[in-house]
């Protein structure tokens, strides 16, 4: 018996050793991407990339954007990844200030607004995500659905609103920040914004752990109203046949910029740059717009090639993102300790 056990252990160790040899990097054109964009999009783009560059060995690790940040921090002494594709610009700015990202000027530097990129070229915007008010379209008619932020805190929606837990979510942080900023920009104090969040809290049925649960609960009518981003809501409606509709808030909505960046100390920078350029060509952006509902940031595209809904006009809510980033954590902490679940 003990011999058997011994051989079993040996066999397992041997297999593992073989495995670890296999995964060793010998390939010059290797590229490792960290991304929250989902495996379907990644596999698709890697296949397209390989048609053009057959010698490339592209791999990706898919995880949430906050998890990417955490990983890049952990690996700062020995960077593993080359490219970080996907996260809100606030997360990228945080990483940039922690000196985790490499400066790189893509060929289309001047084709996007200056606000959609880092002034020091450490990250560039690829897609933009406007935030919307979404509702269960089987239970709520278009006429009665809320059309602006203040409609959501109407007492008639008491216990009907679902909100994703804002702590780990860039989307929700941006929305909460925007709600406070609406008043802060006039009063210089977050108090009125807190009051708004208190009224929202009174209407909230549940702060869900993640976006998937949020949409599931909305579909199952545990709640009827939520705040979420436009591309996702559209994707659920059209690709997953979800009973969901949305309105862009009439008074204006925050638009998050989703970006791309090369990791400082990346082992395969040349390949990373090539892939960076590849996924941001007009062709790639139009393709992603149609197939994955990503709204491109580049302003030089032929808008008629984009899906019609991307060309519908909406009002933007201008925000001081730096102030939001600086004060956001303190605001969120106040919300977490003094507002959440107390109204």
């Amino acid at each position: 018996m003990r011999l058997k056990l011994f051989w079993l252990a040996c066999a397992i160790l041997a297999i593992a050793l073989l495995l670890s040899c296999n995964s060793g990097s010998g390939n010059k054109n290797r590229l490792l991407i960290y991304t929250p964009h989902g495996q379907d999009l990644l596999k698709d783009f890697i296949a397209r990339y390989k048609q053009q560059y057959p010698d490339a060995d592209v791999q990706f690790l898919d995880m949430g954007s906050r998890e990417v940040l955490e990983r890049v921090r952990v690996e700062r002494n020995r960077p593993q990844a080359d490219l970080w594709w996907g996260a809100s610009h606030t997360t990228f700015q945080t990483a940039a200030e922690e000196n985790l990202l490499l400066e790189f000027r893509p060929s289309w530097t001047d084709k996007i607004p200056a606000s959609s990129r880092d002034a020091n070229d450490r990250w560039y915007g690829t897609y933009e995500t406007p935030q919307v008010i979404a509702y269960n379209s089987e239970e709520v008619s278009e006429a009665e659905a809320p059309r602006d932020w203040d409609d959501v805190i109407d007492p008639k929606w008491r216990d009907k609103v679902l909100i994703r837990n804002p702590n780990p979510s860039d989307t929700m942080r941006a929305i909460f920040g925007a709600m406070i900023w609406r008043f802060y920009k006039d009063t210089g104090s977050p108090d009125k914004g807190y009051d708004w969040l208190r009224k929202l809290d009174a209407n909230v049925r549940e702060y869900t752990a993640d976006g998937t649960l949020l949409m599931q609960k909305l579909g199952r009518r545990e709640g009827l109203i939520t705040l979420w981003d436009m591309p996702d809501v559209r994707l659920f409606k059209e690709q997953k046949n979800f009973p969901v509709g949305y309105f862009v808030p009439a008074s204006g909505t925050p638009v998050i910029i989703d970006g791309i960046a090369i990791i400082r100390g990346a082992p395969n920078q040349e390949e990373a740059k090539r892939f960076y350029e590849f996924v941001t060509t007009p062709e790639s952006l139009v393709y992603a717009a149609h197939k994955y509902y990503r709204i491109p940031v580049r302003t030089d595209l032929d808008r008629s090639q984009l899906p019609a809904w991307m060309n519908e006009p909406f009002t933007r809510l201008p925000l001081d993102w730096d102030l939001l980033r600086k004060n956001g954590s303190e605001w969120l902490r106040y919300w977490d300790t003094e507002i959440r679940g107390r109204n």
Partner: protein
Amino acid sequence: MNTDSLRQIRFYPWRSVVLFFITAVVLVYGVIYPNLSVLITSFQRAGAWTLVNYREVLSQWVVIEAIVSSLGLSVGTVLLCAIVGVPLAFLFERFTFPGRRLFAALATLPLVLPPLVGTVAFIFLFGESGILAHGIQNFLALENPPWRLRGWPALLLFHTYTMYPFFYVLTGAGLRRIDASLAEAARSLGASKTVVLRRVVLPQLTPSLLAAALLTFMTSMASFSAPLFFGGDVRVLTLEIFTARQRGDAVMAVTETVVLAIISLGALVFFQRYEGTRKFAAAAMKGAPRRRAIIASGKARVLATVVAVIFAIVLVLPVATLFLVSFAREGSWTTQTLPSDYTLANYQRLFADPFASEVFFNSFTMSAIAAVAALLWSFCVVTFLRRRRFVGRRLVSLLVLIPWALPGTVVAVSVADAYGSPGSLLGSFVLVGTFWILPVVYFLRFMPLVVRALQASMEQLDPTLEEAAGSLGARAWQRFTRVTLPLVWPGAVAGTLLAFVIALGEYVASVLVFVPGNRPISIAIASELRDFNLGAAAAYGVVLIVIISISMMVAGKLERLRS
């Protein structure tokens, strides 16, 4: 000649040195060195040594609330798990009735539910729009769902469901080692059944029960998914740590982590002290374990079977739900009680994906490496702890348990920090970015399970048996393989299996350190969940459950091989 001097004669010093060396190397490289920086960070502010972090953390009432909630939740979990797990172990170990073996196998079912898909299954089953709530709502024509899966009841339900196997498995293993002749002797001396249970059986079981209570307590303290998914407004320490991290307040997160670890290790000290007062003179095991009583009386037989069947249904429901989700068409199951539309698409997606078979292979290999290494190492530590009644003994038991007392994220981050670049430690090596980082993290996180299970078995073992073998001329190796090993084998296999199964579904640490060459199942499940492919995630879960069930059957065979 007293036993101490006997030991000194029997045990060659070099053997102790080797054991000490192996124990020390793993503890220094795996536990002390990586976690030292965590401890140091919590005591520093702007480069200076200070207690200000602790003062700040402990002066916030939300943190105090979180500490109290975590403690309350853990104590409640331990009690509920004991109430469910111990009687079940007695029922299945002591009695035989129709279907016993099937139900005994089912009782370990919660172990096979990885936390990621486990929470999803719970939400689909017990959630306010889940099968049960919907069914009752439709049946009674209620306007609102009859309950909501939130807050304390939800937490305790999920914790009890997922953690009672600690009690069930360890008590079961303990019962198998109990000397039946002692109980018989007590009965023949006129002791009543309850007296025998209280004075003879329970004292012999104490090490197993304490080990289970400690594991449950610590698991519950470090539990993260359950409070995140259905804690509602209940604040627990792990969530506070997570929130602080997300806010970018790393120092506060680290300080709170140390507080969490201190509470968990405090529990260890408490349990050890209690254990000391309940030490019993272990009896010589004559290799005659108690036979299972056949429940002959008709009523009792029916009752035992009914209890077992009801229990089995409750246990199977979440897994059955997972099956159901894996066959439901995406987006079709919203307000119906059961899915209206079934499909094989989720499995087709899984089997068409070349990545899928790879992740199963990766997880299986890495968990097996970690579990086998933990088993081998546990023998070193436990033998070492038994022999050397020295001052550092307590310290070593504490050190062994530190990785279990810490949240998984912290273990991964500290290992990655320590082995992220060639360090100052002698013979330091780089793990970040290699295949080996995950087996190492799995080993560190889950070896306390094996060590505790083995320690519990060893403490039930009568040392005079080994001494007798020694005096009959058996060498150390012979004593080990012919006397000790057969007696502790069930406990060792049970602990190793636990570690293996839990490692298979590990997520929170994996996500921070996995590489393309070792992408584990949990990452694949999380990807599917993020893309709202609930059915595909469930399909992964179902395949994982099948793999785990097969492993358990193999382990069952291994366990019987020895006894």
